[in-house]
């Protein structure tokens, strides 16, 4: 398998007169053709920021300050603005969290799809129309000809997300970054969207980064899983492997926090405390203050070390080999 995306030691900071806040530190991950990488973490862990750093859409004062983002071996961080624009939507597409907000409320679906098409190829209105209809049809929108004339508010949330997915897929990108695209949807619609994206990516060999805080979603869709905490990846590996035998105490805590069947009436295991603010990170491992396994050694930052061929973890006291 070839790596579509290879992110190496990505650092993103927010630079302000009162100081620099490191929001992402040393984020490294790869995604292969047709592979789905789940990126999970709490709010503020930097998972969405990772997505926006990859296609360089962080709004100031945020800034990528180090590392490489290799798309088929080419570092996109060194590209000029116009080259980057040509890349966005054509080779790296994005799907956003809230389908109510991702489509422009005052433009017809047709206009928005035409704009997305004509951004990367010169195309006649008629041709664009048939492309748009085909794209809408592909994501399971009934009567696509009529929907083209619609405004976003005339569609349901699930339909809107389907339109957004259709737009993201228009140019058959190499990589799609999906930022919690099902979080705002009903469970049944969520399932449909998951199945849809999974099928489309598999059919076309599109690599996908699925950003979410929902482990159940990741378990259902992803091939591999990366867990983020306070701007760093703390664990990465095959999805079943990680979920069945988490190595990082934080991953363990996350899995235990999910209410499961058969545990009704029992107290949910919670992770005590909260994620530290990026302005106030503890020395060493950021998870140490909440970690039951923390020792004096954790006052230094552990490196992310491979624990097998496919897995790596950032912890001095990983849970490997222990009964969970």
């Amino acid at each position, binding site marked *: 398998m070839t790596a579509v995306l290879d992110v190496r030691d990505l650092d993103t900071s927010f630079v302000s007169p009162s100081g620099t806040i490191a929001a992402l530190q040393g984020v490294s991950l790869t995604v292969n053709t047709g592979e789905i990488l789940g990126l999970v973490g709490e709010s503020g862990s930097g998972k969405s920021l990772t997505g926006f750093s990859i296609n360089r859409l962080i709004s100031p004062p945020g800034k990528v300050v180090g590392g490489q983002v290799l798309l088929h071996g080419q570092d996109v961080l060194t590209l000029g603005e116009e080259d980057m624009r040509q890349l966005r*939507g054509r080779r790296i597409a994005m799907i956003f969290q809230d389908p109510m*907000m991702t489509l*422009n409320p005052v*433009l017809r679906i047709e206009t928005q799809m035409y704009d997305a098409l004509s951004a990367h190829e010169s195309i006649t209105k008629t041709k664009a129309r048939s492309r748009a209809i085909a794209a809408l049809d592909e994501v399971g929108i009934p009567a696509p000809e009529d929907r083209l004339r619609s405004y976003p508010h005339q569609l349901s949330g699930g339909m809107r997300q389907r339109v957004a997915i259709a737009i993201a897929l228009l140019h058959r990108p190499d990589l799609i970054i999906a930022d919690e695209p099902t979080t705002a949807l009903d469970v049944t619609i969520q399932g449909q969207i998951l199945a849809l994206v999974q099928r489309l990516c598999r059919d076309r060999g599109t690599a996908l980064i699925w950003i979410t805080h929902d482990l159940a979603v990741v378990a259902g869709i992803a091939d591999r899983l990366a867990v983020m905490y306070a701007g760093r990846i703390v664990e990465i590996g095959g999805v079943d492997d990680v979920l069945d035998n988490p190595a990082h105490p934080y991953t363990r805590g996350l899995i235990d926090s999910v209410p499961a069947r058969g545990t009704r009436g029992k107290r949910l295991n919670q992770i005590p405390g909260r994620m530290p603010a990026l302005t106030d990170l503890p020395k060493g491992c950021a998870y140490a203050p909440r970690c039951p396994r923390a020792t004096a050694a954790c006052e230094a930052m552990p490196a992310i070390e491979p624990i097998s061929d496919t897995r790596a973890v950032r912890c001095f006291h990983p849970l490997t080999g222990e009964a969970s």
Partner: protein
Amino acid sequence: MAEFIIKRVLQALLVLLVMTVLVFFGVNVIGNPVYIFASSECDQACLTKIIADLGLDRPVWEQYLVFLGNLLQGDLGNSFTHGIPALSLIFERLPATLELAFAALVLALVIGLPLGMRAGLKPEAFSSRCIMAFSMIGFSLPVFWIGLIMILVFSVQLGWMPSIGRGDTVEVFGTEFSFLTLNGLHHLAMPAFTLSLIMMAMVIRLTRAGMREVLFADYIKFARANGIRERRILSAHVMKNILIPIVTVLGMEFGGVIAFAVVVESIFSWPGVGKMLIDAIGVLDRPLIVAYLIFVVFMFVILNLLVDILYSILDPRVRLGDSPT
């Protein structure tokens, strides 16, 4: 849509009716026009005759009913001073005022929108701060003062601009227009700019505020993530969203600009309805004052209706009777 329009028209009629009461009785309280029309050697018999001629001998409520009856037939009465229908006087003067107001509106948009967009795109830049300072000045300095200073600087000191009148006009469809001749444009420039300042300041501030809000919306991020060119994002995706509040405010403001062009018209001796009103108040020409005020109310009502309709074209979400599927 039809139901919506009918509702609005009924509301408008009610507003008009209330206004006629207020205006008619209000004007009857200020001074007695008879003494202005009567010559100094007019005795009591002559005074009584004038009063009877003007219909002022009848009780006020009866005068009002007569006025209302005439109004329903589209007759707003004859001007005391000119002796011709007040409405035709207004329409004679209106094109000049409309021309001035439209010129001001165009200036406000053509100058205000780009400045506002610039200030919204780079709020920290020095140029943006200058733009915002300019809009603050436009809001706070009184119009008559700006007009006088402009005359002082550009007409008196520098001698670049004419200070009064409409200049050469061209007749189109029976109406005189200044903006079609170079000399007319020259005359139009200063009064139009003066009148546009408040609207321009408002456009700048609204555009900037809209930009600050819309630029960070998810749908703009999505448009960027799709690689849509920045120019297209600004001119269509952003612009159409920020136009909604601008159209609303300008629509309402535009009525005000026509109604209160009084000051600018007086300063620059622009022969429009505003100047006519000032003259009419000076000689207590009651029918003309009433006719003008009714006309202004009518115009406001129509403008608001137009804004509502335009609004629904810009923002599909308020389009009535357009149910979601």
